[in-house]
């Protein structure tokens, strides 16, 4: 058996296990984003949005829809990896992987693509919910797909690093609560950065979620507050940095080997 075939089987085993996990507990993983986003669409889109009027030349409902989908994708990609890998650490079932001939790169890829799978599935569910509130457009399919994929990879990597450092379940929720949620709300989901004063607009340019939301909005609606090339460059650069950092942590055995 070649190494590549063995590694592929190990990768697909981790991925299938991860997908099976979040499907088994769909009430905790897939249902909540659908309910939350339905409320967002009703409250912000319908009730408040009708009084706001247009944003970037679009109805407010149409404007926030890509951002809400992206918010679901990144939150769920992050949460899947951080909670699943930490749970593996907590139950010590991560040792099943550590005693087996599975290279660190395969472990990382397996968990990250598990997060990507949940992120994309959640994004699809929220898109289906959105159909009931507004028309779905696709301006550029490839931009749409590539931005979702890159964003979910990036946040899955973030979740993985969080899980490696976490010593207790509280540590897994700190980053989503104090970093991810504020960045999401300030990342142009609900407003165009054109509305911000010059100083705050500059500050917002350091928020990576701004680029994801606007890249995705371009893929759906053809409008964006940021340059698409910049968006890809930032996403790819951050992914490379987080991948290298994750691999370094795994090599050191951070949080998993004494």
């Amino acid at each position, binding site marked *: *058996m070649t*190494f590549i*075939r*063995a*590694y592929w*089987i*190990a990768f*697909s*085993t*981790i991925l299938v*296990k991860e997908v*099976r996990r979040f499907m*088994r507990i769909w009430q905790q993983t897939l249902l909540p984003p659908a309910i939350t986003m339905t409320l967002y669409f009703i409250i912000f889109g319908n009730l408040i949005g009708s009084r706001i009027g247009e944003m970037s030349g679009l109805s407010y409902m149409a404007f926030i829809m890509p951002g809400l989908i992206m918010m679901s994708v990144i939150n769920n990609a992050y949460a899947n990896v951080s909670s699943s890998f930490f*749970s*593996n650490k907590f*139950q*010590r*079932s991560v*040792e*099943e*992987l*550590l*005693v*087996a*001939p*599975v290279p660190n790169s395969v472990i990382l890829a397996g968990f990250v693509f598990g997060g990507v799978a949940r992120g994309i599935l959640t994004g699809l569910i929220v898109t289906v919910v959105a159909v009931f509130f507004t028309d779905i457009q696709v301006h550029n399919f490839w931009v749409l797909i590539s931005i979702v994929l890159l964003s979910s990879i990036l946040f899955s990597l973030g979740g993985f690093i969080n899980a490696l450092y976490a010593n207790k379940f509280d540590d897994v929720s700190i980053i989503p609560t104090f970093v991810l949620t504020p960045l999401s709300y300030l990342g142009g989901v609900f407003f165009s950065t054109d509305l911000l004063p010059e100083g705050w607009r500059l500050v917002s340019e350091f928020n990576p979620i701004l680029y994801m939301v606007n890249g995705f909005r371009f893929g759906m609606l053809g409008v964006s507050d940021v340059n698409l090339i910049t968006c890809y460059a930032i996403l790819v650069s951050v992914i490379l940095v987080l991948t290298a950092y994750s691999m370094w942590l795994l090599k050191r*055995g951070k949080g998993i*080997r*004494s």
Partner: protein
Amino acid sequence: MSSLNDYQGPALSITGLKKVYENGYVALKGIDLEVAQGDFFALLGPNGAGKSTTLGIVSGLVNKTQGQVKLFGLDIEGDWYAAKRLLGVVPQEFNFNQFEKVQDIVVTQAGYYGMPKKQAQAECDKYLKALDLWDKRDVPSRMLSGGMKRRLMIARALVHNPKLLILDEPTAGVDIELRHSMWEYLVKLNKQFGTTVILTTHYLEEAESLCHNIAIINHGEIIKNTSKRALLEELRKQTFVVELAKAYPQRPDLLGLCVNWQDDRCFEVDVEKGTAINDLFSVFNKQDICVSGIRPKSNRLETLFVDAVRK
């Protein structure tokens, strides 16, 4: 799958293995250890002696500070892929996902070893049947009893057919009947399939009845490493507990025997190595002592073990 003859060198070879934890605690002080292919080997030691650290390093769960570990001549760092394929590990603590079904746990582990699904399922079925878990294959693992969980970990460790099986206190908390059935299975693995078995245990009768060779580790150092026969020959005396058929309020003189009366119907007697039990009975007969039962006071290995770790 390669045969055992394809691999050169001892099943396990440890040279100068040292482990210093981040807090400065020295768990291993540069130990050397060798376990031959096909051996049934016991690594004994009190709690905190370094047993689990040693096995943790061998199985890749603990980073070593210094030294070299080889499995069947393959370095666990340089040839890590080939070396890990030869190793199966049954840890001390339950370390599987409690929410997964029994067969999912075993098949998933086979997948980590690169085994295709169909083959993995066949191997899983084989070991679940062999370890009496077949009826529980679709049960979430948290629903299993303690003994079943232990057997599940053995099935998981064997699913890729390793040549070396490491068991860290495999029978801890397991009832006597189940413990004996696990012993039988391990002996069968060792004798029929040539699987090298290394175990740590606190049940010294387990080591005495199963193992050919024994090492004792204490304070991060190997203090004994020899065959069970040679180790037991080190015993100079053995204590027997003698139960009497009737009470002897006037305790008779037992002519030079070192006797410690427990009560009127029971005493302990120390016997020098080489003394025939018949000689003991000759003395009892002379004093008209009617014996209803006799048994060793403790397991022989236990006596040696206690002596060794107290030195």
